[in-house]
């Protein structure tokens, strides 16, 4: 293909453009596009870049709040955490590439999300990830887990940003499409945040970082279609990461950002040079003219088409203040990075590309963004599955066995095999991480006595059973997890992973989940500040379980007041905050013990969530509790076991609730916290709760080396821990 290639309907279709979309292009250009121009329109209007199926629904989200400095629309969201500090964060998917090439797919997912954050002037301080794999027995699972974990570690460890937490699920619904969602949190000066809008006319445009190669061409288009049996052939569309260059790029960019040389900056992510240059120009209302001969190239004879669509990693584009070119060159050369002045801003409102002294593209920029398709796809929000009463759920006759099976089941079992491959301590500010098994990671703001708390959550089986309620639950669970460590929840990022939006039932899951999420965001004053959408997670027409992963960030204003789940002490009383009805629909008990995946998920009462959470946070600030853990997957019994593991001390649960035993122990009612309270604080904790309308009950005692529940289980802590730790090492050996 070259500039003389005749644009046929077949070529248009190969670029994923519909006939209607092509007509718009003809109209806006007033002529036929050449192949370069067609390629540019195709990636900019791909699902991945244009959010054409999702845009109108994303607009419903709460995106503003007192602490929001920048909401969705930039490279990442920015929030104010006082004292002139800002936190910049985002979560992004790298699902399709990770399935095809797990190591590089996951590694470049981590690299890409870090670039989104440091592009805005932040030093990355923490990484998180949310991973979903197929069932453990599926032939591909082991290889995918191996590759993805090694890729995440290989990239993050080398760059020297701690990977502090995350979540990992296994389910047959992901056999054909795994999910790799990576989140990065960075720290910046609130008054030195960088944006992508180009400004001025005649300002130099700099290209910095790795050379451009032929890797990743049409990666964005790949991520906008479903898989079939030939997906392996898409391997060449997966990018290759170089964390060494990324580390140099971070240091060099931050060094240049400390000067006043940068007018605008944008990383080259999906659709590479195309989307970065167009976004900068579009946001700034200017034109851009590039000389492609100046682009540092890794391979010979690259065409304009290849250069514009390459997704080679570790590249940045910036508009530099005239007169500061020398300074920029000096800094990038010090860090041994490729740097080139490849063009300038113009007042034409057009993207003009030259190659070999010929003009190879000349298109208006506004239509690329303004006329991007904004589809109103038909949707049907599925009704919730019917409610299952606990009395209709078979009660196990062997609670010891049930507990062991649940604690060693894929989703609940220890993920030590994974997180021991991640450097969780580099930068020396990790106060708590996956190591404790806690609810949220805690990362100190360097040199200060405050910290951010971070949590990623989603319970796909709830969203599958009831998208609206499941969507609410994802947001509520992050809010609860941040609360568990004593943080004030501030804002979220999300990664909305769904199947093919052209199917009304999938689009219905998407719309339903967003509505539930948004309701929770509004109830908690907990806005969405960044995120991404990953659709077409389907293979041969089978979609993944709907998985709107949420990453929440909160602030611990004073590190003298925080709690984890590790602090339970001998003699402490266990108090359960929140009401228990014994909800077993869509529960872990139902799935792992009875092999049933059905029933309405537990209802989320946002008022109760808020009331109970605010109370728990107050208990932490008043130093009334030694340990806190939320009740989520597997209910009270699993929360209690995890608290016992973390504190390395046994406990006894006493019967205080009137529902059947299996519903008491394994029911997944929401808005609940298990707290360990010293003897002399028990009365005030309970009486103050009552006064505030918060349900609080004594449910047990800490001590000994066994895990016991009245009339149910009695197992040794060491024995259960051994089984809890066994699942992943056995799977991966």
């Amino acid at each position, binding site marked *: 293909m070259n500039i003389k290639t005749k644009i046929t309907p077949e070529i248009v279709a190969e670029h994923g453009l519909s006939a209607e979309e092509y007509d718009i292009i003809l109209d806006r250009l007033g002529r036929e596009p050449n192949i370069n121009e067609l390629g540019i329109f195709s990636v900019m209007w791909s699902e991945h870049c244009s959010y054409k199926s999702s845009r109108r629904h994303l607009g419903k989200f709460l995106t503003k709040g007192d602490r929001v400095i920048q909401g969705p629309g930039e490279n990442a969201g920015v929030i104010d955490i006082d004292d002139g500090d800002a936190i910049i964060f985002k979560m992004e998917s790298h699902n399709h590439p990770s399935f095809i090439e797990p190591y590089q797919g996951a590694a470049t997912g981590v690299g890409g999300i870090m670039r989104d954050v440091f592009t805005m002037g932040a030093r990355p301080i923490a990484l998180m990830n949310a991973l979903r794999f197929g069932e453990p027995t599926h032939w591909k699972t082991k290889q995918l887990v191996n590759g993805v974990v090694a890729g995440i570690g290989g990239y993050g460890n080398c760059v*020297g940003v701690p990977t502090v937490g995350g979540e990992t699920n296994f389910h047959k619904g992901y056999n054909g499409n795994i999910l790799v969602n990576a989140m990065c949190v960075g720290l910046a000066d609130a008054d030195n945040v960088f944006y992508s809008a180009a400004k001025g006319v005649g300002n130099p445009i700099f290209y910095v970082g790795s050379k451009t190669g032929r890797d990743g061409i049409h990666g964005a288009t790949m991520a906008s279609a479903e898989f079939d049996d030939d997906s392996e052939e898409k391997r060449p569309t997966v990018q290759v990461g170089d964390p060494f260059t990324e580390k140099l790029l971070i240091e060099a960019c931050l060094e240049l950002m400390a000067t006043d040389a940068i007018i605008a900056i944008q990383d080259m992510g999906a659709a590479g040079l195309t989307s970065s240059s167009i976004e900068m120009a579009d946001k700034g209302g200017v034109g851009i003219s590039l000389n492609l001969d100046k682009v540092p190239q890794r391979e010979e004879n690259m065409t304009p088409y290849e250069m514009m669509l390459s997704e080679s990693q570790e590249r940045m584009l910036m508009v530099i203040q005239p007169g500061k070119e020398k300074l920029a060159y000096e800094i990038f050369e010090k860090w041994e990075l490729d740097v080139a002045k490849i063009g300038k801003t113009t007042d034409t409102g057009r993207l003009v590309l030259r190659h070999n002294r010929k003009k190879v593209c000349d298109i208006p920029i506004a239509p690329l963004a303004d006329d991007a398709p904004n589809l109103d796809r038909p949707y049907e929000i599925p009704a919730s599955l019917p409610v299952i009463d606990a009395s209709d759920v078979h009660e196990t006759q062997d609670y010891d066995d049930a507990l062991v099976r649940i604690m060693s089941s894929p989703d609940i079992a220890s993920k030590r095999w994974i997180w021991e491959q991640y450097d*969780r301590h580099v930068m020396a500010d990790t106060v708590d991480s996956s190591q404790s098994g806690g609810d949220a990671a805690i990362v*100190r703001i360097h040199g200060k006595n405050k910290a951010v708390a971070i949590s990623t959550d989603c319970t796909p089986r709830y969203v599958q059973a009831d998208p609206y309620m499941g969507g609410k639950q994802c947001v509520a669970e992050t809010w609860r997890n941040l609360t568990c460590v004593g943080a004030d929840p501030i804002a979220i990022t999300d990664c909305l992973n769904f199947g093919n939006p052209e199917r009304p039932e999938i689009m219905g899951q998407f719309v339903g989940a967003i509505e539930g999420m948004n309701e929770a965001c509004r109830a908690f004053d907990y806005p969405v500040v960044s995120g991404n959408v990953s659709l077409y997670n389907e293979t041969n027409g089978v979609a993944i379980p709907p998985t709107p992963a949420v990453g929440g960030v909160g602030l611990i204003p004073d590190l003298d007041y925080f709690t984890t789940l590790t602090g339970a002490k001998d003699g402490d009383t266990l108090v359960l905050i929140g009401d228990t009805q014994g909800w077993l629909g869509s529960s872990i008990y139902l799935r792992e013990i009875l092999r049933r995946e059905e029933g309405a998920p537990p209802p989320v009462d946002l008022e109760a969530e808020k009331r109970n959470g605010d109370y728990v946070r107050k208990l932490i600030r008043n130093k009334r509790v030694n340990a806190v853990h939320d009740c989520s997957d597997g209910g009270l019994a699993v929360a209690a076991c995890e608290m016992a593991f973390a504190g390395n001390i046994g406990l006894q649960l006493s019967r205080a609730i009137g529902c059947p035993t299996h519903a008491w122990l394994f029911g997944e009612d929401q808005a609940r916290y298990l707290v360990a309270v010293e003897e002399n604080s028990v009365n005030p904790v309970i009486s103050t709760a009552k006064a505030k309308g918060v349900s609080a009950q004594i449910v047990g005692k800490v001590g000994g080396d066994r895990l016991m529940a009245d009339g149910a289980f009695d197992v040794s802590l060491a024995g259960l821990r051994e089984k809890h730790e066994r699942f992943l090492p056995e799977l991966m050996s």
Partner: protein
Amino acid sequence: MKTAVITFPASNCNRDAAVALEKVTGVKPEMVWHRESELPSGIKFVVLPGGFSYGDYLRCGAMASRSPIVKDLVEKANKGLAIAGFCNGFQVLTEAGLLPGALMRNRGLKFVCRPEKLNITNSNSRYTSKYGDVTEVTYPVAHHDGNYYADDDTLNKLEKQGQVIFRYANNPNGSARDIAGICNEAGNVFGMMPHPERAIDPLHGGTDGLGLFKSIIESI
């Protein structure tokens, strides 16, 4: 006291090392870029930090060991300057020939990050003298290539001369004879894979690492 931390391209524990040195000496260390040909004057103790210098490409620490600054460090080490390398810094010291042996890929072939118990096997060294009666400390490890190797003659000599300073209680990487940290014959150059600089703070990894920094600083 004036100290320094060397920064190679993709060093990533340079800030951690600087925080530890400032905590113990009360003075911010000099951050020295690898292309400098000479240390600033008056430096008494140098840390080669952890990280992935040159992306661990070729061999861990190999390219960094050819940096201009390392040439100066080798000369000064031979004249008695105290130098410690942690993690990647240890790899650089072995590649530069300042310490014997080599670091190979972990026995389990995977990156391993966890708090690791260490036995102090020589409490009279310049890097451990302040630990007194303490014989066991916990530092985090975080590495992919920490499997210490040397031939039997070298290992015998290291042991005989008291150059083995730390051993792993539960060997995480396959290191020969559980060796976690060693010094040179003169005792001024020291290297270990674990990270004492990440164990200087009760909120982050405990404070077991402080003794190592206090020991070497006081010995100068």
